[in-house]
């Protein structure tokens, strides 16, 4: 998943869960059925899981541009020269 996809997933997850909760509460209260509320909410959670958790293709529409391997060889990583460590004398 690319960055845009991750942002989309987070927003979708929050919105879908909140809407499931609100719809469940309203319908449950109107029908005076606690069971209905729980079932609607459970259904909403399952739906949200199916939409947001798997790595669907539409979350990868802005893929990151990595450098080609050949390009990377032309610009090698700079070598780090090891510096001699200085010993510190502790004051007594």
């Amino acid at each position, binding site marked *: *998943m690319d960055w845009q996809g991750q942002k989309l997933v987070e927003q979708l997850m929050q919105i879908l869960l909140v809407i*499931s909760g609100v719809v469940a509460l309203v319908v449950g209260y109107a029908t005076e059925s606690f069971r209905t509320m729980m079932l609607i*909410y459970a259904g909403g959670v399952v739906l*949200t899981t199916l939409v947001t*958790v798997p790595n669907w293709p539409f979350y990868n529409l802005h893929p990151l541009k990595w450098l080609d391997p050949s390009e990377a060889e032309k610009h090698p990583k700079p070598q780090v020269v090891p510096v001699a460590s200085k010993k510190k004398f502790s004051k007594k």
Partner: protein
Amino acid sequence: MHSFGYRANALLTFAVTILAFICAIASFSDNFSNQTPSAQIQILNINWFQKQPHGNDEVSLTLNVTADLQSLFTWNTKQVFAFVAAEYETSKNALNQVSLWDAIIPEKEHAKFWIQISNKYRFIDQGHNLRGKDFNLTLHWHVMPKTGKMFADKIVMSGYRLPNAYR
């Protein structure tokens, strides 16, 4: 949100948080229900009234309990626990409460009832104060919710009196 496990965890946590909110609001909605319960208790007979070997008074009553507790049931009610208590005052205690009968009412349909029984639990005093005693019979109820706060209330019925002598 970079991996499957991360997203699954985030979803689960948020879903449970919202579930907690839903249950809190469902419990809060119980405050808006209009409750109009009614009850009547008749003492049909005093079966016997004796002093026990230990010195405590004991009475056996036959009660007729009529009640309509249907309006106590809301969408968030699991069951209603109702009990009848005899309440009276003695020189030793300002308030004595003795539970005589109780029942669990699981559904609204069973909440309008009429029952004639002798007391389920023994009516024993701490001492021998019951002769000629005036007492109240109170129907208490606890409305037990599916989630959230439990509500309790009562109806006090007064004017009952025990006989002046043992039988």
